[in-house]
């Protein structure tokens, strides 16, 4: 198939960027979206142009590195799918496809489609863990965990930290990301001792990083490649209210 892509090109963090149009010819519908960009880059290199910089790594939808807003939708048109798992068969011959980076003050552009997501690590640093230094653990069966809770914790823990929620949020809020970690750890008995301080500290870190506030717009969950549900934000709010009232 033959398509056109309009891609955000920005040489450096401080440079001004713009959308640039490229023709991509003869792409197999079985190619992934990133493989299409690979093919385009090969031709750009050989014609002496600068290839498009983009983040990617595992290309199987789990590392969370790939990050493209495709036609205004984070990770593109297919639900519950990362950019790397999106295939060209979801597009039609002759399409013009817009490709942009995540846009958020907390995720500054480094180059082209590559953004800096260190802010997410900062949120985790603030409390997204259970303190369990190596060697201190009791036997794994010492504390049974109801299957229901373990399953729910797992669902929340499948977040890949890609940042699509922030990219899609009209407020640029990272609430779904933070809520997923709060829920994962808060649902496990091991996570109870730090439950209150965790929610307060992580929310503070999120505000400090320059993310916007949540208005429950719900765009985040619709683009989330792992389908993290919006209800986790309610859980976070509830945890936060309880934690603050105990202070």
């Amino acid at each position, binding site marked *: 198939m033959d398509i056109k892509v309009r891609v955000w090109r920005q040489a450096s963090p401080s440079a001004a960027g713009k959308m640039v149009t490229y023709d991509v010819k003869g792409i197999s519908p079985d190619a992934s979206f990133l493989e299409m960009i690979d093919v385009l880059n090969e031709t750009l290199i050989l014609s002496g142009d600068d290839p498009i910089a983009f983040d990617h790594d595992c290309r199987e939808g789990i590392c969370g590195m790939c990050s493209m807003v495709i036609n205004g939708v984070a990770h593109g048109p297919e639900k519950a799918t990362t950019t790397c798992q999106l295939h060209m068969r979801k597009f039609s011959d002759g399409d013009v496809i817009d490709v942009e980076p995540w846009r958020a003050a907390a995720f500054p552009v480094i180059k082209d489609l590559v953004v800096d997501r260190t802010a997410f690590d900062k949120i985790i640093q603030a409390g997204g863990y259970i303190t369990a230094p190596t060697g201190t653990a009791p036997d794994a069966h010492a504390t049974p965990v109801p299957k229901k809770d373990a399953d729910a914790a797992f669902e929340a823990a499948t977040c890949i930290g890609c940042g699509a929620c922030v990219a899609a949020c009209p407020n640029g809020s990272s609430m779904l990301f933070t809520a997923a970690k709060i829920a994962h750890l808060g649902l496990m008995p091991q996570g109870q001792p730090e439950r209150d301080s965790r929610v307060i500290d992580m929310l503070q870190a999120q505000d400090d990083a320059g993310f916007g506030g949540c208005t429950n717009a719900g765009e985040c969950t619709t683009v989330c490649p792992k389908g993290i549900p919006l209800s986790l934000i*309610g859980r976070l709010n509830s945890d936060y209210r309880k934690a603050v009232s105990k202070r």
Partner: protein
Amino acid sequence: MAVSGALLVFFLFAHAAGNLKIFVGESDFNHYAEWLRELGTPLLPHAWFLWIQRVGLLVAIGLHIWAAAALTIRAKKARPVKYAHRPKIQGSYAARTMRWGGVIIVLFVIWHILDLTLGKVNPAGGDADPSARVIEGFAPDRWYVTIFYVLAVVAVGFHLRHGIWSAVRTLGQQTTAGERRAKTIALVLSVILVAMYLSVPIAVTTGLVG
């Protein structure tokens, strides 16, 4: 947002319930309007309690707008560079129209007070009975006023549909069943409220009341 919004929702219901009095009779409606001013007497002088309510409402509206403005400013700061391809709305339409919906509602409320409370833009004028203001304000030949009113009330409905559900979420609702319940309640309440508010002007314009 959630707490101030909740106060405003309570007010809207009380206000709507009062409006329906007009179906009982014009004198009942006028009597109700007077009763509002007599509430709290003789503990408080005439109309004081109403003014307390009005001040309370203003504070709630102020807080609501202040919070909305703060969130909007934060949102703008959080995304300094806009998307070239306008983001598609994936979630709910109501959720994405809260801000402009809110602005429209504020403008409507100002007009609404000038019209039916103060009578400044009402053909019956400020000295007429409340029922006269309603009946002349929505008279059949002023159909355009009714249409404007209808649109504004529908905007309020949209605002509430997301607002009520969102408030429940902000206050900590978190289960899947609760999620469904909250959505249903938000929708039902919004529809009931819109129906209550629209019944009066439509009834007047179509001549059912008058």
